[in-house]
């Protein structure tokens, strides 16, 4: 029997007992639908993260901090010796970088450049024409991540007096749209060591969407950062450094990390490591949800077994005849296995389609209600990969469930089968 004939025959057999097939498909549907939504939730979160952190994959780029001693200062007799290379920060001793550390990191073999990460403070932003000033304590050095931009572009190393503005500042500053703000000039202000407010004219090169990772950060270019850091006395001691290797192969990251560690008492975190925690939590949650879906499928697979076993009993004579007329055992097995896989196929395809529709509706609703503040966060995203994965997985489960009835059918003795009533 040709495969196409097997498929046709299987399909016809399924459409014979419509109610039973419908109920079995429904059971599969429930599991598949759950799985579609849970993977959609994971994909939505992942997509959002990726968009927020753009180059989650910034291979070869490390955020380097001095090794910290995680001793709690308060309480106990654990008094630490004074170390001039370390400054106290809260209850913890935090050592800081100097230019010599940057130089040292720059000389690590394979390093393209090392630059300081300044910890600066902004005061306000304002725009000519409005006399209102808005707090800008999120003034931050641009760290090279690709951001989710609403308009404009990212900062480059040649930019001076340039800024990427979060879109929350748009309407306070009198811009109607994100595009409207690009290439316009605004004023940012900071305080120097003598508490004098210094204003700077800066050009908006890009507008980024608000996110939970960038919070209220306002990114400015390296030159302006250095100027502010100098004015705020932060130019000689930095709390971290960016180190960029010329080798951007992700596989060499462990070795690059080792090279930095070997250069001194440094802690190197790759961009990937930085978001690892968040992705770990998300994947833990989605895994837990997926397990629920799989359990539902497991239950549904018993439905398939049951349905097909009934079908085998009902069709004993028919199977007997086919075997008498020379149908191979393997083909009889395939016929029933195909029926199981078809049930899985239809159940999962309908479930994925329904999941897709529900995802759209829920995502739409979520973005206008509880996810209002997380622009660009699509709660549920059914990706083609996940859809195919769900369908393939369920067809596999269905096949496995079908093996028992299919074996039973293939082992029928034609004479006894024909004799049965």
């Amino acid at each position, binding site marked *: 029997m040709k495969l196409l004939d097997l498929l046709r025959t299987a399909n016809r057999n399924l459409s014979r007992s419509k109610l039973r097939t419908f109920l079995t498909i429904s059971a599969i549907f429930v599991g598949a639908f759950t799985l579609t939504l849970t993977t959609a939730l994971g994909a939505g979160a992942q997509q959002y993260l990726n968009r927020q952190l753009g180059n989650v994959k910034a291979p070869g780029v490390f955020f380097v901090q001095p090794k910290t001693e995680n001793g709690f200062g308060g309480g106990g007799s654990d008094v630490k010796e004074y170390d001039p290379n370390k400054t106290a920060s809260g209850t913890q001793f935090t050592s800081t970088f100097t230019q010599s550390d940057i130089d040292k990191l720059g000389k690590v073999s394979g390093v393209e450049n090392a630059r300081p990460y300044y910890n600066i403070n902004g005061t306000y932003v304002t725009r000519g024409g409005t006399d209102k000033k808005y707090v800008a304590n999120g003034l931050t050095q641009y760290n090279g991540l690709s951001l989710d931009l609403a308009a404009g572009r990212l900062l480059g190393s040649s930019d001076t007096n340039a800024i990427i503005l979060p879109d929350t500042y748009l309407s306070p500053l009198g811009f109607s749209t994100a595009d409207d703000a690009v290439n316009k000039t605004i004023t940012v202000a900071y305080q120097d060591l003598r508490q004098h407010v210094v204003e700077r004219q800066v050009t908006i090169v890009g507008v980024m969407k608000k996110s939970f990772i960038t919070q209220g950060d306002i990114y400015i270019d390296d030159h302006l950062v250095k100027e502010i850091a100098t004015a705020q006395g932060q130019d000689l001691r930095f709390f971290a450094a960016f180190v960029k290797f010329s080798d951007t192969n992700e596989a060499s990251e462990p070795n690059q990390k080792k090279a930095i560690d070997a250069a001194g008492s440094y802690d190197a975190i790759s961009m990937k490591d930085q978001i690892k925690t968040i992705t770990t939590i998300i994947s833990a949650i989605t895994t837990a949800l997926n397990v629920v879906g799989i359990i539902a499928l497991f239950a549904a697979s018993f439905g398939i077994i049951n349905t097909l076993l009934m079908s085998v009993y009902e069709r004993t004579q028919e199977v007997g005849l086919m075997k*008498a007329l020379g149908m191979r055992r393997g083909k009889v097995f395939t016929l029933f296995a195909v029926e199981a896989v078809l049930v899985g196929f239809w159940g999962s395809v309908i479930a994925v389609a329904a999941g897709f529709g529900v995802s759209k509706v829920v995502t739409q609703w979520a973005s206008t209600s509880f996810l209002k503040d997380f622009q660009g966060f699509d709660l549920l995203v059914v990706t083609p990969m996940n859809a195919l994965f769900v369908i393939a997985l369920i067809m596999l489960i269905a096949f496995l469930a079908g093996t028992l009835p299919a074996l039973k059918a293939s082992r029928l003795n034609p004479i006894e089968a024909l004799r049965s009533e």
Partner: protein
Amino acid sequence: MEKSIVLKANDLVKSYGKKENTFIALKGVTLAIKEGESVAIIGKSGSGKSTLMHILAALDRPDSGDLEFGGKNVEKFKDRDLDKLRNREFGFIFQQFFLNYRETVLENVMLPLKIAGVRGKERNRRALEALAEVDMSNKANNKASDLSGGQKQRVCIARALVTEPRVIFADEPTGNLDSENGQRVEELLFNLNKKKNMTLIIVTHDEDLAAKCDRRLNMKDGILMEGDSHEAARPAANRKQKLVAL
């Protein structure tokens, strides 16, 4: 011209059950059936006639003894080859028809070709030809359930001859039919037997039907009895059987 032997069985033994409950259905049956012959296997129920047919039709294997089809020893065949043998060389007609009533007449007739892997167009053509042979062309697209008993059995005959087999096995082909329809089915079978030179092996307890065959093989208690006009086809071995039975 001497006809060649299509089926040859030598000392077939078959038993069912285990230990004390063993039932010996065949106690050493030897026979030879020639190409184009019509043979009736008759006997009461429990005589072993069905078992004999099952073994001759390669639906079952004997415990001991040899079966030859066209000069080849079937006992050495693998299951796969037996399936192929039944599909290509044998046609089957059953008392209970075993039609798929949800499908059309044409689809029912096609089944052996479908199993053989014959493709759509040729399959259609050959099935229609077979239906024409039994004068059922006009019912090709009817549901099999819409037919009368006689029509059903004619469809079964079409199904049996669609692969142009060398041997047709008919298990009580008229058992479920009234005499008029039975008559028609019998005529069809014997016509095919003559026209296409298909060997016909009919299992029946209908003496009238058996009388129309070239030869009759009487089964009793697992033994082939005399009553065969073709002594040549049953050499000395049969006498040995009798001795065994005694």
